[in-house]
């Protein structure tokens, strides 16, 4: 027989009701007090943030005017309008003089470092001479951009210490194209007028001038090449027409795909532009008069009327010797256009199971199962009519990306089985064999989310190894490309992130404000799990996220052991707001160069980009 069941303890006598109420009352009072304090704290932090934000805005305004004054000074040949931005008591101890260092040649261009010479103090007189010299070097200014890089210290309404980035593009008196990028640390003090600022001291951090012969990469009016095309946005996501329904109007700015591919097999690359209203195909007719020539063959090719399109890819999906076309559309059935072999196309997406109507934004091709035909991977955004990205740096409420396996007469959705259905707001994807095992892997850049690096497990499944590989990169990703930039045989990874080049947007103050705002929404609890995932991914560095988000483009060097190291010193990082990116050898010097949609950066052996 088992042990006797122990006797149940005698029930405690119930405490009198008033004692229980008193206890609850105390708890409630303490809670109320805590809430009041918390609310007060939140409100105080809100005000503090508002001051920070307003100060940042006013400094940016000041910088904008500084840029305009630079142009005015160049035109008039007098630097007084520029000097007005400096405090009458301007004094920069140990500043030295800014000079151009010795140039080095790079891809047909001269690159001059901006250096500090000497350690003498500088006052307004020294500054006047230096600015006169600088402005005197410029024959024309085409474009300027003066922005906050990082606010290091701020006393709103009184003073600020920050790094600023100035970009000046124009030409010199020898007719060379110039682009100057100057990073300086400025000490600002509030001016006599309430809103204004004055520069009390400054010091160069680093700078570079690229001077290229006028004829290098020449922008040609597309109409001269026979291309009478201008991208039009998808009317279905037009903010004006859908102000009420559309929760995420930014999507209308995202479109703008292009395919450079020889669709008719004549050896010349043709051009397809993907469009919100009417995509266009231009056939390359061969050069004439020193320029490429194109003709609009959209109608002849049977491709008229492709709207809501984001991405188009030509490839021989059915291995019959000609290139077919896949078109990824935004919340409209994706299309598969079969090439009849004579340069005309017929749409049979529904027959092949490709007519998925999801917010497709980008796509890449790969033969992930190595069965000899091309499979398709789609980067899928969120549905702008139903959702907006929660957690800007870790949004997981987009629609899943898709992996579609080519089975000959059908494409089978193997997203779930393969584990590639990331639900970030996908904007870009690329395929490459980062680990050199012969099996293609996948990289995904999400707007409002982390990157994914899917390692091909060689059995039809993938594993997201972004964390282990060191490429998490929470920045708002907009472009991704593989390429071996340093010639070691391994595929490096470049990601373009939105970055207004203003890291201050991501400073602690701003991130803290964001978190406070989130706490006030009904999503705070719903997203708690996601915060936990963020924490697990990056641990206690979470508070640095803001800076990371704001830092912009990232170049990850492949270490050859399955991991990457971010190239922090590379100028690529500085390239700013980037969408498309491409690795290619621009100058035929045998190194791949890197082009981000906002400018190209050359690469030379033995140096960083």
């Amino acid at each position: 027989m088992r042990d006797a069941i122990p006797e149940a303890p005698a029930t405690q006598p119930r405490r009198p009701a008033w004692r229980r109420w008193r206890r609850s009352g105390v708890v409630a009072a303490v809670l109320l007090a805590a809430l009041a304090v918390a609310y007060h704290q939140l409100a105080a932090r809100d005000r503090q943030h508002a001051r920070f934000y307003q100060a940042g805005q006013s400094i940016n305004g000041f910088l904008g005017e500084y840029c305009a004054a630079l142009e005015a000074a160049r035109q008039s040949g007098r630097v007084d309008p520029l000097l007005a931005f400096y405090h009458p008591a301007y004094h920069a101890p140990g500043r030295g003089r800014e000079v151009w260092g010795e140039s080095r040649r790079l891809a047909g261009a001269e690159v001059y470092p901006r250096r500090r010479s000497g350690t003498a103090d500088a006052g307004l007189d020294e500054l006047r001479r230096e600015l006169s010299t600088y402005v005197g070097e410029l024959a024309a200014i085409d474009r300027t951009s003066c922005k906050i890089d990082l606010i290091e210290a701020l006393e709103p309404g009184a003073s600020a210490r920050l790094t600023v980035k100035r970009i000046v593009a124009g030409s010199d008196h020898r007719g060379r194209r110039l682009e100057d990028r100057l990073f300086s640390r400025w000490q600002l003090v509030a001016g006599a007028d309430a809103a204004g600022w004055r520069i009390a001291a400054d010091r160069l951090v680093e700078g570079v001038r690229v001077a290229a012969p006028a004829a290098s990469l020449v922008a040609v009016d597309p109409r001269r090449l026979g291309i009478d095309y201008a991208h039009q946005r998808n009317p279905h996501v037009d903010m004006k027409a859908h102000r009420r329904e559309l929760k995420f109007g930014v999507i209308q700015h995202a479109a703008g795909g292009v395919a450079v591919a020889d669709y008719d097999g004549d050896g010349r690359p043709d051009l397809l532009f993907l469009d919100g209203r009417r995509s266009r195909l231009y056939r390359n007719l061969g050069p004439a008069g020193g320029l490429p020539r194109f003709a609009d063959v959209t109608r002849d090719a049977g491709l008229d009327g492709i709207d809501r399109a984001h991405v188009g890819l030509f490839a021989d999906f059915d291995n019959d010797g000609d290139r077919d076309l896949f078109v990824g559309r935004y919340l409209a059935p994706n299309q598969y256009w079969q090439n009849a072999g004579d340069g005309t196309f017929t749409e049979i997406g529904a027959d092949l199971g490709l007519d998925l109507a999801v917010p497709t934004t980008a796509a890449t091709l790969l033969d992930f199962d190595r069965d000899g035909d091309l499979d398709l991977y789609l980067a899928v955004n969120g549905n702008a009519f139903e959702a907006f990205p929660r957690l800007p740096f870790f949004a997981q409420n987009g629609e899943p990306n898709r992996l579609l396996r080519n089975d000959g007469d059908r494409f089978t959705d193997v997203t779930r089985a393969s584990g590639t259905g990331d639900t970030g707001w996908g904007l870009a994807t690329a395929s490459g064999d980062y680990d050199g095992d012969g099996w293609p892997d996948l990289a995904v850049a999400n707007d409002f989310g982390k990157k994914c690096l899917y390692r091909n497990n060689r059995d039809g499944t993938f594993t997201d190894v972004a964390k282990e590989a060191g490429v998490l990169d929470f920045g708002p990703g907009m472009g991704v490309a593989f390429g071996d930039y340093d010639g070691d045989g391994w595929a490096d990874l470049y990601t373009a992130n939105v970055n207004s080049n203003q890291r201050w947007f991501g400073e602690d103050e701003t991130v803290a404000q964001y978190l406070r705002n989130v706490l006030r929404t009904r999503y705070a609890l719903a997203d708690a799990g996601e915060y936990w995932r963020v924490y697990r991914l990056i641990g206690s560095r979470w508070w640095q996220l803001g800076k990371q988000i704001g830092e912009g483009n990232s170049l990850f060097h492949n270490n050859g052991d399955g991991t990457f190291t971010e190239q922090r010193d590379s100028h690529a990082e500085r390239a700013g707001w980037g969408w498309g990116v491409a690795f290619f050898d621009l100058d035929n010097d045998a190194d791949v160069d890197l082009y981000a949609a906002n400018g190209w950066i050359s690469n030379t052996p033995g140096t960083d980009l």
Partner: protein
Amino acid sequence: MADGRGVGVGDLDGDGRLDLVVANNNAPPSIYVNRLPPAGWVRLELLGRRSNRDAVGARVRLTIAGRTMTRWVEAGSGYAAQSAFPLHFGLGAARRLERLEIAWPSGLVEGLEGDALAARLSLGRAWRLEEGSLTPRDRRLAAVPASPAAGGGGH
């Protein structure tokens, strides 16, 4: 500067220098014609037999002057963009290809080096290479020149 989105790369005018097409949002595209000083180049378009016909995923290693360049055939990268399929190799001042190795998606790895390579591939033009055509058994098929139109800068 326009609002750049997709970036596509290809030799639009066939002069051996890669040109750029940038699709802009809500605006005409930007097209940049490459007028940098000419330098040596060679371009390879791969045709899969057992591999997918466009050879997407193939890895090509080309050695010149003791340096090895690695490129991959890809379709779709960057931002909603596709660049021309042929792999473009700038050669700088080098005048001789030393070694070519192609790892096809099918698993076949084949190559040529030294005089055999120099005899097959002359510089400054585009070549179509079919899978298996570099293996000794089948060498007579090696390095079929692309159609005259594709030769581009070969004139």
